[in-house]
């Protein structure tokens, strides 16, 4: 239970921390710095002490069930544990080994893999709560987090739903209703004429009223048809005519609407916290404009766009909306903001904890997950609006198991190698910020400003049944530039490797270093505009390329004892270099043709690279080496995956991941390279391949059907024999020509099962 005693304990710990820090600062810094730090600590102290006097516990919570999985389940359980609650995890049979299942004090199986039968199964979760004696349920995000029936069902059982009241969930869940309430609360909604526009004259009148540019659209419209943007009267008249005829011909309905057109649209949202005693505060904004397939990928706080006045205005309106609807708990008001004039317009309100909440936590120091529990326990909000300030800048990348090279399709597979970034090769944060993070230990940032909320670990499978989010990677820095720098390094250092698993780290890395994104001048169309034909990897700068080459060459020299090698790099195009070690710290690189004949190029073409630092870490059972390297005074992190079986291999193929690029590198001595031209290049020849039963048994499942495309090594069928399940994999890539067996069929040795061509 949240006993006042416990709170006092937590609080006093922080006070101790803070006073200790003040002591440290007092001694070590100039007066100015000390005063600055002192102010910071004072505001923190206020944050942590203001509550003790005013807090009136209404409800006892001692055990929390988290009705979710993956990283968010762990994030919430961490907060619950910090508050001294017992935790209960629920899991589907596909998640038996999952991390969240083991992180909790107790775990309860709620059903088969399909989420409708498990994580969306209200009765099963309530049964779990009752049987484990949980007195509160936190829904996380997604799944049942904004489900009125779930909240009501819990209420009926006398179990506290950690989230907003049902009235607020219901009101904000309805798009039209929420807009109406927003308008009532004085929140800006997108200007427009509510009703039919009869003539171009009327259109001009309306447009003048709401201001150009405007969007003319067919009221029956959709799919971009009958939609035109007009930025002056002349264009409007034309747009009106065209839209009318388009609407008539496309939908048989010529009614038109006019709405304010938001130029350079950006997605910015305001976090609010509201208690059951009518107190509401708003927290600084998060910018979530970088989206793909209408889903956020990269979020940051604060937004590079907003000024304090706009921020205040947006915040106050958000708070007003919360008051209007009688909101409780944490919530988020989403706005569409024009990058042109910072005008903002209400989109919707999310009545849950958002995925991207850590960035707000980082810049405000307020633990949102803990706050939700405190509010649920009936406490009064312990922060006042004037206590809230912005310190530094934070970025979050959502790391998904998805294929950025193929329209972000989800990917599944086993994580063979996993290591979270620590950024220990960078300078730690400044003393003030570092001390702040130390005092806010519960937010889980390390002294280098990196936090990873992950739901996976080495050896786990990414199941196909759920959202393929691997983790949230958050970095915090003094300012946006610093936070971005840390993020770029964290992405380079983040190792996620599996045989067939593909993830979006390279893509995130590409966005982080995209000049448009770095400038801060972004819109929700950033990805569409910057990568119009889709993402195809990153071309490295010369320095980066050389750094990657030196890293692999150093590895090769260390392992084989050679001092010169020919390196073939296949990133977007094939290049070949002659690399030699001039002395311990100097490498010579020369570009040579792909069909090199062994004649040394002009020595004048040789470039020298100094490498002053080289350190490797072996990961994932030895197949991945994470290399920290400094070349020409640039620090870099290079991931190298060894494809051969031995360190001593004469010809060493590696896969290199760095700076958002992933490519093959092939190293061998010069005298071997010149002979390669005689080797036959093996092209994948398509031919019939028949998968035969390796042993007699029963077909447990067949995972492909005719005309499916399969890749070599893909799971095709499961054969049960000797009471063991044997995964049968495709012998070759191709298309399934015929499936010769059915589920449950008993088959004999060498019986053909699946034919691939």
């Amino acid at each position, binding site marked *: 239970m949240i006993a006042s005693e416990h709170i006092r304990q937590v609080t006093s710990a922080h006070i101790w921390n803070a006073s200790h820090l003040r002591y440290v600062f007092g001694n070590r810094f100039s007066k100015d710095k000390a005063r600055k730090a002192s102010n910071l600590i004072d505001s923190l102290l206020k944050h942590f002490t203001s509550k003790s006097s005013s807090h009136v516990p209404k409800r006892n919570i001692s055990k929390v069930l988290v009705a979710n999985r993956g990283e968010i389940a762990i994030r919430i359980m961490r907060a619950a544990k910090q508050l001294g609650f017992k935790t209960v995890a629920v899991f589907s049979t596909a998640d038996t080994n999952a991390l969240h299942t083991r992180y909790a004090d107790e775990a309860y199986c709620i059903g088969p893999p399909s989420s409708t039968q498990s994580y969306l199964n209200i009765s099963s979760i309530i049964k779990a709560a009752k049987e484990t004696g949980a007195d509160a349920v936190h829904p996380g995000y997604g799944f049942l987090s904004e489900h009125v029936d779930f909240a009501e069902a819990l209420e009926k059982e006398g179990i506290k739903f950690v989230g907003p009241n049902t009235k607020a969930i219901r009101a904000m869940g309805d798009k039209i209703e929420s807009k109406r309430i927003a308008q009532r609360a004085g929140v800006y909604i997108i200007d427009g004429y509510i009703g039919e526009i009869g003539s171009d004259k009327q259109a001009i009148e309306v447009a003048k009223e709401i201001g150009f540019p405007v969007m003319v659209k067919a009221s029956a419209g959709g799919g971009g048809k009958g939609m035109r943007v007009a930025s002056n009267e002349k264009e409007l008249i034309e747009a009106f005519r065209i839209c009318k005829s388009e609407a008539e011909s496309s939908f048989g309905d010529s009614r038109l609407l006019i709405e304010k057109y938001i130029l350079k649209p950006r997605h910015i949202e305001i976090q609010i916290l509201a208690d059951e005693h009518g107190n509401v505060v708003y927290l600084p904004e998060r910018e979530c404009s970088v989206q793909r397939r209408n889903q956020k990928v990269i979020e940051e706080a604060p937004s590079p766009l907003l000024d304090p006045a706009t921020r205040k205005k947006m915040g106050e309106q958000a708070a007003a909306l919360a008051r209007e609807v009688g909101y409780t708990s944490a919530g988020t008001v989403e706005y569409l903001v024009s990058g042109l004039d910072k005008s903002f317009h209400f989109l919707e309100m999310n009545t849950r904890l958002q995925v991207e909440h850590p960035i707000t936590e980082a810049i405000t120091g307020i633990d949102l997950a803990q706050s939700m529990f405190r509010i649920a326990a009936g406490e009064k909000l312990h922060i006042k609006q004037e206590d809230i300030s912005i310190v530094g800048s934070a970025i979050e990348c959502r790391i998904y198991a998805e294929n950025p090279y193929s329209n972000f399709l989800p990917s599944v597979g086993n994580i063979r190698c996993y290591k979270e970034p620590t950024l220990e090769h960078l300078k730690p944060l400044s003393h003030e910020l570092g001390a702040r993070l130390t005092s806010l230990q519960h937010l889980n940032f390390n002294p280098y400003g990196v936090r990873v909320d992950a739901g996976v670990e080495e050896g786990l499978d990414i199941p196909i049944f759920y959202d393929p989010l691997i983790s949230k990677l958050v970095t915090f820095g003094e300012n946006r530039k610093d936070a971005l720098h840390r993020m770029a390094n964290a992405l380079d250092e983040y190792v996620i490797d599996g045989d067939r698993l593909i993830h979006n780290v390279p893509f995130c890395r590409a966005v982080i270093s995209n000049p448009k994104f770095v400038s801060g001048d972004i819109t929700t169309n950033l990805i569409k505009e910057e990568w119009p034909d889709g993402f195809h990897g990153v071309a490295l700068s010369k320095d980066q390329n050389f750094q990657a080459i030196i890293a692999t060459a150093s590895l090769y020299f260390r392992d084989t004892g050679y001092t010169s090698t020919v390196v073939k790099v296949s990133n977007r195009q094939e290049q070949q270099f002659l690399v030699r070690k001039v002395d311990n710290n100097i490498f010579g690189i020369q570009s040579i043709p792909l069909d090199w004949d062994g004649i040394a190029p002009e*020595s004048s073409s040789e470039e020298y690279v100094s490498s002053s630092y080289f350190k490797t870490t072996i990961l994932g059972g030895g197949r991945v080496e994470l290399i920290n390297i400094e070349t020409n005074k640039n620090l870099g992190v290079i991931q190298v995956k060894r494809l051969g079986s031995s360190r*001593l291999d004469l010809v060493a193929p590696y896969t290199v991941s760095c700076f958002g690029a992933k490519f093959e590198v092939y190293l061998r001595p010069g*005298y071997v390279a010149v002979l390669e031209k005689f080797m036959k290049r093996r092209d994948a020849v398509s031919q019939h391949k028949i998968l035969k039963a390796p042993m007699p048994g029963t077909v447990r499942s067949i995972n492909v059907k005719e005309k499916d495309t399969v890749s070599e090594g893909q799971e095709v069928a499961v054969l049960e024999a000797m009471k063991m399940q044997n995964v049968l994999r495709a012998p070759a890539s191709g298309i399934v020509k015929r499936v010769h067996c059915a589920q449950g069929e008993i088959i004999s040795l060498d019986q053909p099962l699946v034919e691939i061509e």
Partner: protein
Amino acid sequence: MSARPLTGTLENTFKAIGSVPTDFLRICIASIRHSRNFSSKVTVHEAPKIVNLDQAEKAYGVKLRNRFAEEYRDIAENTFKDDPKASARQHQRGKLTARERLQVLLDPGTFREYDGLVTHRCDQFGMQKNRVAGDGVVTGIGKINGRNVCVFAQDFLVVGGTLSQTHAQKICKILDRAVDAGVPVIGLNDSGGARIQEGVDALAGYAEVFKRNVLSSGVVPQISVIMGPCAGGAVYSPALTDFVFMVKDSAHMFLTGPEVVRSVTQEQVTQEELGGASVHSSRSGVAHVVSNDDIEALSQVRSLISYLPSSWKDIAPNVPPAETDPPTREYPLLDRIVPADPNAPYDMHEIIYRTVDSGEFFEIHKHFAPNVLVGFSRMNGQTVGIVGNNPASLAGVLDINASVKAARFVRFCDAFQIPIITFVDVPGFLPGTAQEYGGIIRHGAKLLYAYAEATVPKITVITRKAYGGAYCVMSSKQLRGDVNYAWPTAEVAVMGAKGAVEIIFRGLTEEQKEKQVEEYEKEFLSPMVSARRGYIDEIIQPRTTRKRICEDLVLLANKDEWSIREATPQKKHGNIPL
């Protein structure tokens, strides 16, 4: 023998360049031209040409010329290199010439050729007009990672690389040299077979080679790399050696070719189907390692040699583990790598990768009988042989092929003082008529024999199932196992609980049986029972496996086959059930 094989750097070895083929030299020079201590000019001190030599000799009555020395210069320049026209023919087939192969295989500049001037002695069928120095095989010594090896490479461009009496003598000489010096021998086979023109002389030559292969077996490691045709009697030399490498597409091995097969059995079959690399690496088990091309094959041979001792009296070179991978490393993932469901498969490779130095595992017979894994790794720098049942394939059962594969590997390790680490997860022997008719009893006995006979350090880790006879076979304590560990997930019993209850309690109702199953599981399907009886030395936390094995290897470093308590009785030799 140096303890660290990696002493020679490219520069150092180049400094010692003596008799290297000239185009090779050119390349070497190219790749290191800027090196500080290396003069870019190679000077050959030639005697000045004396114009009036004959005249002077006559006039002064003094012998001024050594005719042989002059002739030899000619020979040295023209003999030890490939004819470019002929080389092109070999290159068209995607193959390298014999000398180019040795260039890839050996450390640069270390090859020393023997018998380069040998020619055949056949004077019939026009052979007298076709005498080429070397007679179709290049033999000599060289170094791999600084360690000596003996090599021979058949040259397909000289009389089709066919084996004549003198060709065989050259090979025999190098095999003898290997045994005398105690260094491994590597043969690169690319030959049309026996030289028919020489008749029985060629056959006798083969027999001489086979005899030496047998006599050298267990004395020095013998490796064969099949890089072209290898048919008829010729196949038996590789078959007698320890490891056979094959190159895809270019290598073929069979006793009788497709034509003979067709005329005798009416069976239509291509060379590739009959004896290609994929057939021998996955179905017959003749080939231990299969490679995509010549360069890959030779690179792999180098890697394999790095794991092996030079002879039975030597120990394998120590390659210290990377600093970031100390022998004390623990791997928490191992604690949960075995699935809770006893019937769910997992890949034994993953356990091996995480236990050995830097995840390096040189797998032998990767595609043949994948239900058992064998190969070489290092632990704390020391070479170990790894044997593991792989539940990801056929549930990890032992069948005929798996037994034979593992047995031969265990015997190799025992012959060359390589400790054996065995990871056990075996549900038993594969049942069925195919197996019984095929003689699984005989073949399974080979593995049992090999394990029982082996006197090298034997460390066993039972990760999950060790059922029935297969428990006994897989390096059990009773077969002179040194250290036998079990993970907490281990189940050591005569059979699975259900099967056992079916037999013990025939006639009980299903419900009663279920109760008995539970009882049996409690009683036998845990490592506790075996641990209480001392059949298991210790139940260990999986994450500490590496640390413990490394410690045990130090403890057992001086284990000596003659002074162990259960020493092998004196005898001529045992009678393994072949």
